[in-house]
């Protein structure tokens, strides 16, 4: 159950959460498949039902059922007071969310994509992230900013940027990047319950993908810890860290590498801020080689931070220079073939892993 074998269930969407739970009770041994979209929807549904202070605000979240249908059915269930369609005013409604959070409400602010969050970044950073500090603990901001992040398919330069590195450099924010449905459910629930501002970076291309989910994941009190990475695949020869959609690529690369005798360990970061440095370093101390994979721009990216962390803490354990795989250092092109090569592909990861493994005489791996 490491998410390695996944099949895309095209055209098959999971029914609403109620029937699933009852179905599970009768077929408790079967692992259910759930799309990321349904995972997010069910997490929002459950949190809104549990706590009347949680409300959803954003463009098209209500009557349109969500720009990507993440908030489907929520308007009918909770009414327009709690599922608020807003005008196109990112700065305005992000700030309204912060003001509401000051008074103990728990807003979930949806950005249609995180590219639009740049219009509201003043409020995410200056009023949400910094308020608890500036007011010496008087004004806490239990807000969640969520939405799709990173490249989609053919949407051009202004709709394709990855904001993980930008938000993760700011103290006062927590930045989460789910990959599978389990991640999506657990991390979104943890984010909504968290008393601090959380930036929740989803990925549009993952919304339709299905992952197996256990009973535990479907339970309404399921939560994942913020700040803990998950080792998706245990290995011995090289560590590959990735987040969001790149985890899927890393896992595919690991399968290919296995045929060449390289046993890769794949870490799903889940949380960019705080970064789970201990898990990453422990893994590098075991494998002695590191590859970081991310979709965003290479300079000052997440990979740069991971590399620095590993160099600071586990330098003596490195047998090869750290390989950093990132998106191309250009605004995203539109042409499909160019777009494909502007984002890391599975072959890039495989090549980098082989480079990392052949740089020095491979040590006989310890058990």
């Amino acid at each position: 159950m490491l998410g390695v074998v996944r099949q895309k269930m095209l055209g098959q969407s999971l029914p609403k959460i109620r029937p699933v739970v009852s179905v599970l009770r009768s077929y408790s041994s079967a692992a259910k498949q759930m799309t990321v979209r349904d995972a997010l929807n069910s997490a929002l549904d459950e949190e809104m039902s549990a706590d009347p202070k949680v409300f959803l605000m954003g463009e098209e979240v209500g009557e349109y059922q969500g720009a990507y249908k993440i908030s489907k059915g929520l308007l009918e269930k909770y009414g327009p007071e709690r599922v608020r369609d807003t005008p196109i005013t990112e700065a305005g409604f992000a700030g309204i969310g912060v003001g509401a959070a000051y008074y103990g409400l728990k807003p979930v602010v949806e950005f249609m994509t995180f590219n639009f969050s740049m219009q509201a970044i003043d409020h995410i950073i200056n009023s949400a992230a910094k308020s608890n500090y500036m007011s010496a603990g008087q004004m806490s901001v239990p807000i969640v900013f969520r939405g799709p992040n990173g490249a989609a398919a053919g949407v051009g330069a202004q709709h394709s940027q990855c904001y993980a590195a930008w938000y993760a450099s700011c103290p006062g924010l927590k930045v989460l990047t789910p990959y599978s449905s389990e991640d999506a459910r657990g991390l979104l629930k943890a984010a909504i319950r968290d008393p601090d501002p959380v930036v929740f970076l989803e990925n549009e291309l993952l919304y339709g993908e299905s992952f197996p989910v256990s009973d535990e994941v479907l339970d309404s009190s399921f939560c994942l810890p913020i700040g803990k990475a998950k080792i998706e695949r245990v290995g011995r020869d090289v560590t590959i860290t990735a987040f969001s959609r790149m985890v899927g690529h890393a896992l595919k690369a690991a399968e290919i590498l296995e045929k060449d005798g390289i046993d890769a360990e794949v870490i799903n970061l889940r949380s960019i801020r705080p970064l789970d440095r201990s898990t990453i370093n422990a893994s590098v101390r075991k494998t002695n080689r590191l590859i970081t994979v991310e979709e965003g721009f290479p300079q000052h990216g997440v990979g740069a931070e991971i590399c620095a962390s590993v160099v600071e803490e586990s330098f003596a354990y490195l047998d090869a220079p750290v390989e950093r795989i990132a998106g191309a250092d250009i605004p995203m092109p539109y042409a499909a073939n160019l777009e494909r090569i502007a984002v890391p592909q599975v072959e890039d990861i495989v090549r980098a892993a082989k480079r990392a493994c052949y740089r020095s005489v491979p040590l006989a791996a310890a058990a």
Partner: protein
Amino acid sequence: MATAFSTAKFSTQPFPLNPTSTTSHDSSIVFARPTSQFLGSTRKFRLTSSSKFNLSRRSKTVVAVSDVVKQKKSKSSPSLLITKEEGLDLYEDMVLGRAFEDMCAQMYYRGKMFGFVHLYNGQEAVSTGFIKLLKQQDSVVSTYRDHVHALSKGVPARAVMSELFGKTTGCCRGQGGSMHMFSREHNLLGGFAFIGEGIPVATGAAFTSKYKREVLKEADCDHVTLAFFGDGTCNNGQFFECLNMAALWKLPIVFVVENNLWAIGMSHLRATSDPHIYKKGPAFGMPGIHVDGMDVLKVREVAKEAIGRARRGEGPTLVECETYRFRGHSLADPDELRDPAEKARYAARDPITALKKYLIENSLASEAELKTIEKKIDEVVEDAVEFADESPVPSRSQLLENVFADPKGFGIGPDGRYRCEDPKFTEGTAHV
């Protein structure tokens, strides 16, 4: 240009656009009449009088409060606008604001205060006029010129002064500073350095008040929020976004524009296509009022109506207070661009002297009583400085505190384990 404005009925236009309630339409018509009509040209904002009677075109000379009041007294009922207690209360608050800010300037030049300090001298009528009408649970959101808003809202002078000195006894433990005054107890939500940043936050606080009443069913929640900001902010996108949403969702908020005609060195007239800010209210479906911000009694009358409107659930109001800051934008501003004649003109309309004159001429207070108040305030401010001086600076361990509300940050609870594993964290989840 002047004539076009004199016929503008600023507040009656938008209501036909608002189809939902006729009652609000009616009450706001009533609201419209007693408050000031704007007369005058774009170049000079004239004194406006609260009119229960027909206005004639005023001459160019500045008219003091007491003259207007005498005129009112002769033509309408002889009732005064305030009682003695209220008058003394207003006077004390304004004197506190002025004395405090003057002391801030002194302390800055002596090196005890540092960074950016923006003083409020001359604008006290707006702060006192509005904030003194609020309850403790009502919220105030301000800008970087927030010392006097904090004082009017009830934050002790000692706490504000210590915060300015960067001491740990300040209202934000020295972590906020001059531009970031927060007080949970007094519902002062800051203190924002970016102009326009406070407006959405204030709108959010008003949103919460409405949400609590309607969704959480706390039926008696009628808290009002005041958002204070300047003339420069009125060209900023966030201002318009929030006017729209506040009117759309009928939030209990009053947008108070402290139009002091200058944004650092940029004159309002050079920066704005239509300098009449109150006209921007009706464009979004809310009343827009212009009031003389150098006259605390007029501000108070307008404030009563606006706050009452919000409290009754009738929605937001935009109030433009024409005021003036006697000092520069901040203590680092050499203030060379403003015309000394303009400064002199407004100095003659000092709100504190005006109120003093009013109180004395209407026999609400004697010179002696006012002098006692002034002395008392001097002592309060001196005490605040002494307290701040003697307070300790924050300890080094305070550096990393308060980044997160989470006690250990990052999802780790006080017992060292992940909070998500704590059953209490996950309790309360209903069966879906």
